[in-house]
């Protein structure tokens, strides 16, 4: 019975983002008739030829689909890394960007634009500096190793703020006519400009990060007992933490590359997950992934249809998610806690 229930839960968690992605194809300001959408999907997937207006094809296949896929990935990545970090650092107030990866990646991107004046090296630089920021936080955290969790997180806060400052500095020295707009636009981020290429470039690290976190999810339970106990239970804490941090960094950096710095999802979605499925990371981690993806798609779709000029993601995430969180809190009486 238990096994059956578990399977049902996992099936729901797996299917719901797919359903949301599918539904996203039907939503948008431009009217594409339903049968056309289905036909486009069918002929594209079978590599056949679509006898439909070009505009229909490009709206559904080139604009909506990559956006939906990336949206799901981004939401999932932020939520899953947030949940993992919360477990790892035993602090429920920690979120996906806590070790500085977001601002590191942002700075990397700005630097790439500054140096090369083109956008080609952005991803490489963003990942490199995202990783560097995390590494720096890690080094600071290791200065004193009795309560490394707090120090690591504080290290992250410091590194993060230094990189944010460096971003401002990069903007300061950038050429206001070509580099600055590129930096600003990149930092603002937007799923709106998602392309299939982005899935290829940012999607792979995101997928690797997600896969890693899903695989190691039970270890996070054990790690959340604290370093000392985790070691005595047979965990190579340095290694396991390293893997969790690396995977979460990959996932978050990928998400930041696609959609800029979105803070909320990586903190609150895991808590919504806790209220719904409890704290066991075996379920919480996939649940966060799935919830994050669905939530992001929901918000993105809302943003696309409410007005023509796309309400920025950050606005809706909080305005839709905040009350939902409070509702859940009331309903479960803070069940997770």
């Amino acid at each position: 019975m238990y096994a059956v229930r578990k399977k049902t839960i996992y099936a729901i968690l797996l299917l719901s983002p797919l359903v949301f992605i599918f539904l996203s194809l039907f939503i948008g300001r431009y009217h594409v008739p339903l049968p056309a959408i289905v036909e486009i999907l069918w002929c594209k997937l079978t590599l056949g030829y679509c006898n439909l207006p070009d505009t229909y094809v490009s709206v559904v296949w080139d604009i909506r689909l990559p956006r939906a896929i990336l949206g799901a990935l981004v939401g999932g990545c932020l939520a899953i890394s947030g949940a993992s970090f919360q477990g790892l650092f035993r602090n429920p107030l920690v979120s996906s960007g806590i070790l500085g990866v977001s601002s590191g990646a942002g700075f990397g991107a700005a630097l790439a634009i500054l140096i090369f004046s083109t956008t080609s090296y952005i991803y490489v630089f963003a990942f490199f500096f995202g990783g560097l920021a995390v590494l720096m936080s890690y080094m600071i955290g290791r200065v004193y190793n009795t309560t490394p969790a707090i120090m690591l997180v504080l290290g992250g806060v410091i590194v993060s703020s230094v990189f944010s400052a460096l971003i401002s500095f990069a903007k300061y020295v950038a050429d206001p006519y070509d580099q600055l707009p590129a930096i600003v636009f990149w930092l603002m981020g937007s799923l709106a400009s998602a392309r299939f290429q982005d899935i290829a470039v940012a999607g792979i690290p995101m997928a690797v990060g997600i896969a890693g976190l899903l695989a190691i999810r039970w270890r996070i339970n054990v790690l959340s007992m604290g370093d000392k106990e985790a070691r005595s239970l047979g965990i190579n804490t340095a290694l396991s933490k390293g893997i969790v941090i690396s995977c979460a960094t990959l996932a978050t950096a990928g998400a930041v590359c696609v959609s800029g710095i979105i803070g909320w999802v990586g903190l609150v979605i895991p808590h919504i997950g806790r209220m719904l499925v409890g704290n066991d990371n075996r379920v919480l981690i996939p649940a966060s992934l799935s919830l994050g993806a669905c939530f992001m798609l929901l918000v993105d779709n809302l943003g696309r249809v409410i007005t023509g000029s796309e309400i920025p993601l950050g606005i809706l995430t909080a305005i839709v998610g905040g009350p939902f969180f409070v509702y859940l809190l009331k309903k479960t009486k803070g069940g997770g806690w």
Partner: protein
Amino acid sequence: MSLIELKDASFGYNQQDIFKGISFKIGKGEIFCIIGPNGCGKTTLLDTILGILKLRQGDVLINGSNIQKMRPHEIARQIAYIPQAHSKTFPYTVLDVVLMGRAAYTGIFSSPADEDVVIAEEALALVGLTRLKSRPYTQLSGGEGQLVMIARALAQKTPLLIMDEPTAHLDFKHELTVLETIVQLINDTNLSIIMATHFPNHAFYFENNNIKTSVALMDQKTFSQVGRPADIISEENLMMLYNINAKVVSCHIGSGAELKQIIPISTIS
């Protein structure tokens, strides 16, 4: 070869030593009780044996190999640990906590298998907490929480158990259950145990159950005495160790057997 051996071990947090020059060895099926005043360094010593703190000097050998060279999961398949204090964070269920005892047998990228769940449930049954298995462990009473920690260590299925005051917070019934479980496990599986305790009576209990028991009195940064309980736990030694008056009494139990007990009477001012 002894299961575990400490050679000339020393440790200190800062400049000051907590203990130095401690050596002992334990074979299969033996119990080693460490008795000493609060703050004498028992917990610290156990932490160094586990490799959680690094010795300043000396070595810890498990089955002849140095613990510094062993990987955590190798150590955890040899030694299970019941910590003195545990600070709770997320409200995991009791079963989930006990299941963590299986970490050493679970690959880094996998979750515990069904066999592991069975083992965890057996361990819970041993300490008598089956009925609480799906309760958040943050909502347990003090004693129940302690039993969960014991169950987790039992689920680790190791040849050596290190226990730091395992019966603190336990009632008579559970204290006896734990002691009896230990005796049974030693008889059945040849388990060995290192135990820090404030109850010399535990040592008598084990001796009485025909288990090879040693007692070490820890004081002045080292083991002042090591030996059989009957020899070591004497009124004089306790007076030296704690500066108290104590009485050793014998009482007849069930089948004509005798159980020795030490009873603290008063401090010496």
